[in-house]
C-alpha cells in the first residue's frame, strides 16, 4: 500500500520550515541520531528528518504535507517503548510530541486530567496527589514514558488486575488523522454513541492517528496499601498460591512473581531482604480502606501459609513496603548487572499454565545455551522473561531472538498471546502470524485503511504483510518438521 515519497528531503524540510520553527526541523545526522531507536535499541534506523511541532495546527499541516507526498510519519513520545514501535522509517518523518508537555487541567471533583500527549505518566499522579488522586496505569517506565505513548501502546503496569490498562482509564483523545483532520474521540461522559473508536485507537501503535490531547480518569488514592511477601519452594506452589488468593475473593492491587534467578539478582541489587533460597517469590499488595486492607492481609497471609509458603513477611511501614517493591521494580537493571545485555519478552498466558511454561522455558534455556530470569505480573498472567546475552558475541543476539520467538509461540500454544503490554512494533511482527490467520490480519489492514487510506502512519509496524506471514509460517512448519525428524532419529 505504501509507495515511495514523491518529495525530496530538502523540499520536504523547506516545506515544514515554512510553518515550524526551523530549529525544530532536524535534518543532520548528528542531531537525528538520538531518534534512531526507542527503548528496543537492537532495532535502529535513521529517519529522513525529525520534526518537533509545538501546536496542533502544526501537526495538522505536517500531516497534510506528508499525506500529499506519501511520506511515512512515525509519531514519538519519550521513546521508551520496548517493541521498536517508534523506530524511524528511513524514508519518513519522526514526529516528536516532546513539546506537548503540559498538564492542561485537573478537575478534582470530576476526577479527570486533561493532558498534552508528551506529559510523563508519573507527572500526572504527582500533580494529582494534592487532591488525593492518582492515575491508575503505572508502567515500569512511568518516570519517563508519556501519556501519548501509553495510549498508543495501551500500557499496563503492576496494578492492571484491579485498576485496568490505559483503555480502561481514558475518557477521550484528540487525534490528528493521516489526512490532517482534528477529531475528538470519546467525551467527558463514560461512553459515546456509535462504535467504540476510543478502544480501537488505544493500543493502535501510531498506525491510526497522532494523539494530540488525552483526557484520563483519576482515582482516589487508597487510604492504605500493604504488601505480603511469600517465598515458595517451587513455581508450581507459588502459582497455586496466586490461584488461592483469587479464589478467596481477594483482588490484590498488585500481584507479582519472580523466579529464583530474579530473586537473587534483585536482592543483590536492592538489598530488599528477599528469601534467597526460595525458588519463587510472590509480592501481594492489598490496597483500600484501613479495614479492608487489615481484613485481606490477614487472609492473604493465611492462604500463603496454608499453601506451603516457606516464608511470609508483611510490610509494617511505608518504608518497608517501598523496600519490598524496590527489588521487584529494579529487577530489570538488577538482571542487567549480571549480564552484558538482556532481552525482555512480554507474553501473556492463562495463569494456570505458569508452572508448565516456566519449566519448558528452563528446558529451552538449556537448548539455546542462554540464561533466563523471570518476572511475572502473576495477577494478570503477563510474563516478562529476561533472556541474558552478550551482543558482542557473534550470533548470540540472533539466538536470543530465536529463543524469544519460541517463548512467544509457547504463550500462544497454551492459550495466551504474544504481547501483554509492550506492543508488536517491529519486534514481534513475525509472531503476529502465529496468533492470527490471514483473514484476521487482512481485517486489521482494512481497519488501518479506514483511518489512513494511503498508509503513511507508522508503516510496516504492528500488522505484518500477508505475503510475509505465509513465508514465516512455512519456515516455522519446516523447522518444526525438522525438529520432529531429529527427535525421531535421536529417539
Amino acid at each position, binding site marked *: 500500500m505504501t509507495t515511495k515519497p514523491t518529495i525530496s528531503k530538502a523540499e520536504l524540510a523547506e516545506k515544514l520550515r515554512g510553518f515550524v520553527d526551523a530549529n525544530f526541523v532536524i535534518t543532520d545526522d548528528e542531531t537525528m541520531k538520538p531518534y534512531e531507536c526507542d527503548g528496543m535499541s537492537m532495532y535502529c534506523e535513521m529517519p529522513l528528518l525529525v520534526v518537533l511541532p509545538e501546536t496542533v495546527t502544526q501537526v495538522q499541516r505536517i500531516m497534510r504535507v506528508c499525506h500529499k507526498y506519501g511520506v511515512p510519519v512515525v509519531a514519538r513520545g519519550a521513546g521508551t517503548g520496548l517493541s521498536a514501535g517508534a523506530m524511524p522509517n528511513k524514508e519518513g518523518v519522526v514526529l516528536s510530541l516532546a513539546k506537548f508537555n503540559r498538564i492542561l487541567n485537573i478537575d*478534582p*471533583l*470530576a*476526577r479527570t486530567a486533561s493532558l498534552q500527549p508528551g506529559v510523563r505518566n508519573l507527572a500526572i499522579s504527582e500533580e494529582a496527589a494534592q487532591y488525593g488522586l492518582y492515575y491508575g496505569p503505572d508502567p515500569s517506565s512511568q518516570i519517563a514514558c508519556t501519556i501519548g505513548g501509553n495510549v498508543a*501502546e495501551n500500557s499496563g503496569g503492576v496494578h*492492571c488486575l484491579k485498576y*485496568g*490498562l490505559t*483503555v480502561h482509564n481514558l475518557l477521550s483523545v484528540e487525534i490528528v*488523522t493521516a489526512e490532517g483532520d482534528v*477529531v475528538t474521540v470519546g*467525551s*467527558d*461522559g*463514560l*461512553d*459515546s*454513541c*456509535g*462504535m*467504540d*473508536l476510543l*478502544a*480501537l485507537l488505544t*493500543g*493502535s501503535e501510531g498506525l491510526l492517528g497522532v494523539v494530540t490531547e488525552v483526557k484520563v480518569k483519576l482515582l*482516589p*488514592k487508597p487510604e492504605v496499601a500493604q504488601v505480603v511477601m511469600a517465598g515458595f519452594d517451587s513455581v508450581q506452589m507459588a502459582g497455586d498460591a496466586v*490461584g488461592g488468593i*483469587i479464589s478467596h475473593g481477594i483482588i490484590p492491587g498488585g500481584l507479582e512473581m519472580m523466579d529464583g534467578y530474579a530473586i537473587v539478582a534483585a536482592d543483590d541489587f536492592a538489598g530488599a531482604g528477599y528469601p534467597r533460597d526460595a525458588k519463587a517469590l510472590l509480592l501481594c499488595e492489598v490496597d*483500600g*480502606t484501613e*479495614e479492608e486492607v*487489615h*481484613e*485481606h492481609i490477614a487472609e492473604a497471609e493465611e492462604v500463603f501459609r496454608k499453601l506451603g509458603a516457606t516464608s511470609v513477611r508483611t510490610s509494617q511501614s511505608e518504608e518497608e513496603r517501598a523496600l519490598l517493591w524496590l527489588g521487584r521494580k529494579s529487577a530489570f537493571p538488577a538482571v542487567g548487572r549480571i549480564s552484558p545485555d538482556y532481552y525482555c519478552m512480554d507474553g*501473556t*498466558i*492463562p*495463569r*494456570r499454565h505458569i508452572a508448565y511454561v516456566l519449566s519448558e522455558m528452563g528446558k529451552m534455556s538449556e537448548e539455546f545455551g542462554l540464561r533466563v530470569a523471570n518476572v511475572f505480573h502473576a495477577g*494478570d*498472567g503477563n510474563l516478562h522473561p529476561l533472556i541474558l546475552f552478550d551482543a558482542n558475541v557473534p550470533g548470540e543476539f540472533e539466538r536470543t531472538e530465536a529463543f524469544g520467538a519460541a517463548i512467544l509461540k509457547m504463550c500462544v500454544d497454551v*492459550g495466551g*498471546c*504474544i504481547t*501483554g503490554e509492550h506492543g*508488536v512494533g517491529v519486534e*514481534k511482527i513475525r509472531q*503476529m502470524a502465529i496468533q*492470527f490467520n490471514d*483473514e*484476521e490480519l487482512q*481485517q486489521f489492514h482494512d*481497519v*488501518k485503511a*479506514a483511518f489512513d*487510506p494511503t498508509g503513511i502512519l507508522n508503516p510496516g509496524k*504492528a*500488522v505484518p504483510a500477508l505475503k510475509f506471514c505465509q513465508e514465516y509460517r512455512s519456515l516455522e512448519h519446516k523447522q518444526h518438521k525438522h525438529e520432529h525428524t531429529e527427535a525421531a532419529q535421536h529417539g
Partner: protein
Amino acid sequence: MADISQQLQEQVLQARARGEKLNIVGGNTKAFIGREASAEAGTLNVSEHTGIVDYHPVELVMTVRAGTPLAEIEAVLAEQGQALHFEPPHFGPESTIGGTLACNLSGPARPWTGSVRDQVLGIRLINGKGEHLRFGGEVMKNVAGYDVSRLQAGALGTLGLITEISLKVMPSPAASMTLVQEMGMNEVLHYMNSRSAEPKPITAACWVDGKVYLRLSGAKTAVEATAEKWSGEVLEADAEFWHSVQDMQHDFFAGSDEALWRFSVNSTAANPTIEGDWFIDWAGAQRWFRGAGQLSDMEPLARAAGGQVSLFRGGDRSGEVMHSQPDALKTIQQRVKSSFDPDGLFNPGRLYSWM
C-alpha cells in the same frame, strides 16, 4: 448448548450472494434500541448459539457463546462466588450477552467496576464477507492487533455477528449496604462526586424522586466502617432497589412508548434546565430524562454538559436516535463499517441512517 456458528456463517454467505440484508436478533429483548429495524432485511437469529465454552474461576475469565442468556451466565458464576461486575440490565429472561455487548449496556456499578466493554477480552465475529474471525483472547492483557473486540461496544451489530465473547469476571463483594437520604437536584451532583473522590468502597450512586442512594460494597468491615462515617439511613432490601435500577424496572422508567432520553455526560456538569423528570445515575455521568423534545433540542444540552445524548427508548425511531457525529468521524465510521461489512449486510440503518 449448541454451536451453530457454521449455520450462521452459511446464512451470512447466502445473504451476501443474494444481495440481501440481515437484522441480527438474539433474545429479542432490546428491539427498542437504535433506529427501527429495516423492514426489507431478513433475520439472523443467534439465540440458539448458546453455552459456556470455557470457564476457569481462578483465571477470572469466562468464554461464552453470544446467544447465551445473561441469567444463565450469572447463575454459573454465582456458584463460584463470582459475578459480572458491570451489572448488565436484563430486559427479560432472554437477554443475551451478545446483545449486551453490541448495545454496550452496563448497570449502576459501571463507573467503579467498569462497563461490559471494559470487561471484554476477546471475541469471535462473522464479518460481512462470511469470515469467522477471532480477536483479542482469553487473557487480561493482550495488545496484539487492534482492539476489535471493544470496538463492537455500541456498534449495535453493524460490524458483524458477534458469536463468542471472552469476559473478565470478578468475585462478588462480601458485603453490601445502601445509604439513602433526601437531597435536592442542585446539591446532589456535588455530593455524589465528592463521595466518589473519597477512597471508600462506593459502587453505586443515583438520585431519583428527591433522594440520593449510595451503595457500598466490599469487605464487610470496610462497608460497615464507611456507612458509620457517612450520613444517610440504611436502606432495607437494597438489592431489590438496585435491581430495579439495573433492569430499568423502577417506576421512573414505566411507559415504554414515551420518549426516554439518555444523557452520557460529565458527572459534575450542571443539569440541563428543561421541563421534565430526571433520574441521575453513575454519580452524575448517566442521566435519564423524560420530557418532550427532539434530538436536535437535546444535543446542545448534552454538548454543554460535556457529553452526548441518545433517544434510548420510545418516541420517534424513524429518524436519528443517536447523537450526531462530526463529519470526520462519520467518514471514518463509514469506512470502518465497510472494512467489516463491504456490502452493508448487517443491521442496515439501525445505528444511524447513514450506516
